[in-house]
């Protein structure tokens, strides 16, 4: 079961990390606070994707769309309606989950690569809408200067808001992945035919996972707007989806927190190597090649495997 690493040790480790992250903005320059907040947002997005890729075995190739839908919904609610701000916070993840349900409903009828291909196509459709519908979405200009509540006005304010929501979402994800649903989802990933024979409705479980994951992606979209105050069609573009997919593989897709590590590495590369050369993706590419050859289970997957107790007792997966 899930004793060992996931219990006291990792709770202690997480608490230390959280304490450090709470103190950091007081001592580091604002640029780094902003960078960390951005990494948190992308981490949440990658974590939501990994619920499907790592735990559900679903090739959700265009997961970024639901992030974009969350961000756009939030932006549109604030700029185009006079409803109270909290409705925007609620509507954004819900609309992401609704689009997730719609696209997922078609995709779960297909398996493996075909699932992924249909998912890319339908996701790109959403991107095209965001890109073309000038009167609503501002087309390729997007929407900028989105007003947010005053407590989010400073970078530090939004940093803490994003951090708190990230932690809450991670706790919720942890519970979901350790619930009977989580175990059953991993069973459908490992062996859909046998799951079906045991009486598990595989498609229904996959669709449920997609709705949950896209809901979290929608929250990540909201957090992006909180930090950046703008939206643009790139948030819906497949390139972002590819990036977060790589983060999952890089960090360790069969682990719980691996995608956070993947997101931190990729985003740091982009920001820090990106200031020296526009070819920072070259570095990422080399890391990926090494990963495929030497760490097929991702970085965190590798270390959990390496330091697991002897006698083959298992590493908690979720």
């Amino acid at each position, binding site marked *: *079961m*899930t*004793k060992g690493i996931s219990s006291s040790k990792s709770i202690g480790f997480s608490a230390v990390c959280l304490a450090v992250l709470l103190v950091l903005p007081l001592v580091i320059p604002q640029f780094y606070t902003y960078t960390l907040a951005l990494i948190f947002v992308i981490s949440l997005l990658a974590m939501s994707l990994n619920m499907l890729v790592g735990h559900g075995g679903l090739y959700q190739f265009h997961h970024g769309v639901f992030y974009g839908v969350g961000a756009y919904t939030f932006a549109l609610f604030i700029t185009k309606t006079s409803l109270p701000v909290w409705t925007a916070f609620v509507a954004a993840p819900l609309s992401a989950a609704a689009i997730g349900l719609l696209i997922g409903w078609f995709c779960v009828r297909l398996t493996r690569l075909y699932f992924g291909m249909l998912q890319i196509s339908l996701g790109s459709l959403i991107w095209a809408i965001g890109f073309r519908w000038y009167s609503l979405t501002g087309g390729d200009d997007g929407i900028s200067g989105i007003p947010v509540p005053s407590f989010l006005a400073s970078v530090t304010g939004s940093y803490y808001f994003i951090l708190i929501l990230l932690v809450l979402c991670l706790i919720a994800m942890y*519970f*979901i992945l*350790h*619930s*009977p*649903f*989580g*175990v*059953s989802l*991993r*069973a459908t*990933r*490992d*062996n859909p*035919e*046998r*799951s*079906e*024979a*045991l*009486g*598990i*409705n595989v498609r229904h*479980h996959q669709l*449920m996972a997609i709705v949950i994951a896209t809901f979290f992606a929608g929250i990540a979209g909201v957090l992006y707007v909180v930090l950046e105050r703008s939206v643009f069609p790139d948030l819906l573009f497949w390139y972002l989806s590819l990036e977060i997919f790589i983060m999952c593989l890089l960090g360790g897709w*069969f682990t719980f927190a691996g995608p956070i590590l993947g997101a931190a590495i990729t985003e740091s590369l982009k920001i820090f190597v990106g200031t020296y050369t526009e070819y920072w993706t070259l570095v990422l590419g080399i890391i990926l090649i090494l990963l495929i050859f030497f760490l097929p289970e991702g970085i965190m997957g590798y270390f959990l495997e390496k330091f697991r107790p002897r006698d*083959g*007792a*298992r590493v908690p*997966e979720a």
Partner: protein
Amino acid sequence: MLRVESLQKSFDGFMAVNGAGLVVEDHEIVAVIGPNGAGKTTFFRLITGHLKPDGGKIIFNGRDITGLSPHKICKRGISMSFQVVNLFHRLTVFENVQVAVLSHQNKTRMLFSPAANQSVPETREILASVGLADKADRIGGSLSYGDRKVLEIAIALGNQPDLLIMDEPTSGLSPEETAGTIKLIKRLSSELGLTILFCEHDMELVFSIAHKIMVMHQGNSIIQAKPDEIRNNRQVQEAYLGISD
């Protein structure tokens, strides 16, 4: 308990199962034997719903289950352990069995209760009864082949079946492992009161534990009788036992 009448299934014109029939009574251990290609596995897969029959009838506990989907048949109380080991290879041994129990108890959609609190006693009991309790925390895919075969049976038990169908439970096992499986089958029958239907190539095993044996030949059931009668039946000797000598 189970009555199969003139079951038929063809693949591209080849009659894999051609009029096979079988009666299994409560608490019996019934073996199906026959040469390779006689249609044993197809016959089982028709009963469990993994294949749809072209003709014939399958009655289980008085109800017609012909052509139902696998999970409906599973809910009615028939479980199957597969010849080719068919596990959840990244889950622990415990979770492999737990999933089956969760599914049986309709708990697979529970989101807000830790899995560590659900269906635990039932799962532990099954693991203990098959002798995998001490390996509960190992990953399914890391077990030895013999243990994986046993886990395969344990998953099938997770649905609390009335009838357990086993497709060659000892294929590929060493003599010691085979002996262990024989003991396990006997225990499942005597302690849990399970009705067991299995097919097997190992004649020694078949004659040592089966209450009744059904012989299949070219997709048809040519006889079903007690082991002694089978041994002395000329038709069987010609069709099967003779060939294996």
